[in-house]
């Protein structure tokens, strides 16, 4: 199982803070994204927004990064702190 977090505008657009993906083997970030859309078709537009950033285990990663079961995955908009 992969824990998935959403933040800020994306969290509000999906109306979801946190969900999980039931997978038992490694998937890429891109595959994880498609699995999430499969389970929640209404998320398609928000989750395929090109500007979204992705973190695995709290480190920024690219779409081809491998996510393992028990990893923590997060999607969020470009950051605006400081």
């Amino acid at each position: 199982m992969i824990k998935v977090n959403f933040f800020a505008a994306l969290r509000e657009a999906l109306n979801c803070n946190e969900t999980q993906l039931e997978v038992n083997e490694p998937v890429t970030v891109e595959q994880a994204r498609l699995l999430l859309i499969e389970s929640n078709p209404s998320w398609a537009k928000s989750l395929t927004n090109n500007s979204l950033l992705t973190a695995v285990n709290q480190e920024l990663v690219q779409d081809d990064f491998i996510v393992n079961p028990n990893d923590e995955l997060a999607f969020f908009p470009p950051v605006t702190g400081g």
Partner: protein
Amino acid sequence: MSTNIPNDRIVIQTADFDHGDEVNLLESDNNEDGAVVTFCGRVRNNNLGLDVKGLTLEHYPGMTEKSLQNIVNTAREKWSLGRVTVIHRVGKLLIGEQIVFVGVTCKHRGDAFAANEFIMDFLKVKAPFWKKELTNQGEKWLDAKSSDTNKAQEWKSE
């Protein structure tokens, strides 16, 4: 340098901080570093022509601290730094309130200026914070600025 005061101080908090206290902490028991550069960012009363009344800062607990520590580590690889403090507030903030503090001590002023600006430039594009502004037209998530992306990029081409 005293071993009682750790060289990195990275804090995420809702409470305000005191600029003077932070500088004292950076300087106390530290007679090697002649230069201290601080940056403090506050909530402005204006943004893109809208009246801003305040903002809410959301972050990704855990990743935020990791990300700031990574940025500070990278700065330490580039320059010989003394102490570094990074404080970032989260939650609801009003106009004029302090948002972020970065303080760097160094033997040489050029390194202190460069490292402080480097930390701010990367905090702006890498650390998972998001601002939602309350303006006279309602609440609105801030868009990331391409000028911030460009500033961070410039360090890579050095």
